[in-house]
């Protein structure tokens, strides 16, 4: 009688999630001597778990003299819900060793969920093996969890294999398998399943779209988002919106990003933290810092991601003092920085030449916040030393750092040596870089220039020979320019639309004349292939970023900023040309290349000619 009353009360507690109630009930149960009752104990563990009191659940569980399958299912579920899947997996072996029990289907399902939460694929396969040979191997719920686990761990084919074996496929299993394919970039398989599923709702669409964004297919994801809207799906959950905003950030598509922002406002999701963070990041990556700041300051609640998005944004646009100021404000407001924050901060120091500050931040990262420096941090610190001329220190760092320095790292140091005219160190590093068998053709140009300036002509010819034997770049250079609804892509060396080609050529020739008048001389060392000087100059003419700028000047609204995204590093000659163009036509040109942003205005670039 008493037992059933307490059972009922505990179940009500579990539903209401009020933390104080289960403790009160627990104390009453102990005083009444009912704590030996297994049923009550199990329910109490479950209730503690659901109310978030994981330590109480754990203690109670450890003290139970007699534990059964229900107790185990309750405690493992509690760990999963408290986001402690590692705890669940570490406590599980005592189910057999202490209690002599083999898992049932509830326990299997919970174990698989824990493995999914950790992406612990080895453990997951162990559980799968035991599940197959157990008597529960037809259970659809466990199979559904397995599909989810394999999808999260990046094994879409395994996920599909389990999925096909499910008798009655639930909406969750369809969503998991679609997500699995999408995350691994298998667009057509994912689409095929989306068309087949009887549960074509917001969740399956979200799984597809967010999976594609994660695997780098931002443009496809955006198209699918538009399809989803046409399908009439009501957006009751803001996750898909924040995913699309992230997609816009990665391709720097400002116009579409603004439309999605408008949609978020119209749907009432503007105050969501995830959407807010995504918007700050998107505007920063699309070079609209003003909007990024506006949204940031309008956020009611800011977490580490919000602060970091803005700090990194300011850093990438060369606003070092602003970034450091934000960092101070962040610390004052009690938010702890993470690894990404420090990458942004040290990056900003390196572009402003603040050596002491950069060193101090690097040390404070591990001393005050316990963050182990990663390769990115070391690269930024190296950059800092290189740009400010502390070349010996840079060389020392690169030899002592716990990571194997790769080609871009050495190349960065080498270009610094070239800039500061330090021939000795330069040649030393050039030799090391050469021995690494570099793949990037621009590295070879750099090497030959360094050797040439040191007068080592033999090495120069060696490098040139290697350069000619190297195959053409695997990735073709391209630039995209977006204006309003349009988005044009120009590939290097390819001829574009014949109607516009003539106009572009005419404009470029005119600009060229004007530039030469102002003292511009083409830098033909940027051209790899061996040909006549005149031919080389013509080659340079058709670099994709120039064509894109010309297109923007012809077709864009006069006076607006021209925004270009380039997939490779801007070459030295184009950098010069763009500076000139910006002063000739008196317009701002923003180019995002593979390394950073370049903001050309009035004949100058925000990167101070060092990229």
């Amino acid at each position, binding site marked *: 009688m008493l037992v059933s009353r307490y059972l009922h009360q505990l179940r009500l507690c579990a539903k209401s999630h009020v933390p104080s109630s289960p403790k009160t009930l627990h104390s009453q149960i102990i005083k009444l001597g009912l704590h030996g009752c297994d049923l009550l104990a199990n329910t109490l563990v479950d209730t503690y778990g659901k109310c978030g009191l994981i330590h109480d659940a754990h203690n109670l569980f450890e003290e139970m003299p007699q534990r059964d399958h229900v107790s185990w299912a309750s405690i493992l579920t509690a760990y999963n819900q408290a986001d402690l899947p590692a705890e669940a997996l570490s406590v599980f072996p005592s189910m057999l060793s202490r209690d002599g029990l083999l898992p049932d289907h509830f326990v299997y399902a919970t174990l698989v969920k824990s493995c999914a939460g950790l992406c612990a694929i080895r*453990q997951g396969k*162990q559980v799968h*093996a035991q599940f197959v*040979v157990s008597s529960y191997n037809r259970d659809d719920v466990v199979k559904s969890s397995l599909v989810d686990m394999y999808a999260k*761990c990046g094994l879409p084919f395994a996920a599909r294999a389990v999925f096909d074996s499910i008798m009655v496929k639930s909406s969750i299993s369809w969503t998991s398998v679609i997500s699995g394919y999408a995350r691994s970039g298998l667009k057509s398989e994912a689409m095929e399943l989306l068309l087949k599923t009887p549960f074509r709702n917001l969740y399956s669409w979200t799984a597809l779209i967010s999976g594609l964004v*994660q695997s780098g297919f931002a443009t496809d994801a955006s198209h699918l988002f538009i399809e989803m809207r046409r399908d009439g799906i009501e957006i009751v959950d803001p996750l898909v919106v924040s995913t699309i905003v992230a997609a816009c950030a990665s391709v720097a598509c400002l116009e579409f990003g603004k439309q999605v922002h408008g949609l978020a406002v119209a749907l009432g999701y503007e105050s969501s933290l995830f959407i807010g963070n995504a918007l700050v990041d998107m505007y920063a990556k699309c070079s609209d810092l003003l909007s990024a700041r506006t949204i940031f300051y309008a956020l009611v609640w800011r977490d580490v991601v919000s602060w*970091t998005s803005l700090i*990194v944004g300011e850093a990438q646009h060369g606003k070092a003092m602003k970034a450091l100021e934000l960092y101070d404000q962040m610390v004052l407001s009690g938010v702890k920085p993470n690894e*990404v924050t420090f990458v942004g901060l040290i990056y900003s120091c390196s572009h402003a030449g603040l050596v002491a500050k950069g060193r101090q931040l690097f040390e404070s990262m591990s001393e005050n916040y316990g963050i182990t420096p990663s390769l990115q941090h070391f690269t930024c610190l190296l950059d800092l030393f290189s740009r400010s001329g502390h070349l010996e220190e840079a060389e020392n760092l690169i030899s002592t750092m716990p990571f194997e320095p790769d080609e871009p790292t050495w190349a960065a140091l080498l270009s610094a040596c070239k800039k500061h005219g330090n021939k000795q160190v330069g040649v030393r590093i050039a030799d090391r870089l050469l021995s690494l068998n570099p793949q990037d053709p621009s590295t070879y140009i750099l090497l030959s220039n360094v050797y040439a300036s040191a007068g080592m002509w033999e090495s120069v010819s060696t490098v040139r020979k290697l350069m000619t034997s190297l195959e053409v770049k695997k990735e073709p250079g391209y630039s995209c320019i977006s204006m309003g609804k349009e988005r044009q892509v120009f590939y290097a060396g390819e001829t574009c639309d014949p109607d516009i080609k003539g106009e572009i050529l005419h404009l470029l020739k005119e600009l060229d004349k004007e530039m030469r008048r102002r003292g511009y001389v083409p830098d033909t060392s940027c051209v790899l292939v061996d040909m006549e000087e005149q031919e080389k100059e013509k080659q340079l003419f058709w670099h994709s970023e120039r064509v894109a700028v010309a297109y923007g000047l012809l077709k864009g609204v006069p006076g607006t900023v021209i925004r270009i995204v380039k997939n490779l590093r801007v070459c030295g000659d184009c950098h010069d040309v763009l500076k000139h163009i910006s002063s000739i036509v008196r317009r701002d040109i923003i180019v995002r290349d593979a390394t950073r942003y370049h903001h050309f205005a009035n004949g100058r670039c925000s990167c101070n000619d060092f990229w």
Partner: protein
Amino acid sequence: MAQTLARSFTSSRHLTLSSLIPKRLFSSSTSSITRPPSPATLLFSRRPLLPISHAVRSVIPVSAPRYTAIRCRVNRSGNSYSPLNSGSNFNERPPTEMAPLFPGCDYEHWLIVMDKPGGEGATKQQMIDCYVQTLARVLGSEEEAKKKIYNVSCERYFGFGCEIDEETSNKLEGLPGVLFVLPDSYVDPEYKDYGGKPSKNFCFLYCYVLFSPQLCVEIWIFCVDLKYLVLKCDFIAFAPMSVGLRVVSCYC
């Protein structure tokens, strides 16, 4: 022959014969032996026979559980512009070293789950042939494959257990018909048993039970078809003049 058998017994890691006898003698589980031994005779050996248990413990090394590093799957976008997209799960990563969840999981025993082995409507023999052929593709020969398979299943699930190393197991993935390659653990941890029943194909004609002076029991199985050889078995029922056997694992 006797020597070969003795050697094969001592070299097997699955033998836990003597430890089973006292508990299982009066168990009531059913026998899966296809042909009852006839006539079943209890032979008292005149030669002093080493108790198997003693031999087993001295010869077979105890394998420690293997702690293997977990490959952490970090969502790297690869683009220098999205350090912020490197996943919201910055705090939760799988621990780099984690003990196996189930006893007997040593990554030397693998459960291979297959999809429609032998084709639609295959017989048990066809299924087993398919298993042997699949494993033979990575081991080189069917004889090798047969030695390494320690159990097969053709009813509750379609698959087989085999004793190979992890590198070889990776080669099985992606072979036609192979659904999953999973690390096997004890089904019956008390008896350190990887489970599974041998197919009816492995059949026995008669067996001899021997008692050594130390009252440990050894079972010597002679098969009609000398291709097959029993590695391990235990008692499941005992009555005077007859003995039922459940063959737990064997190789051929």
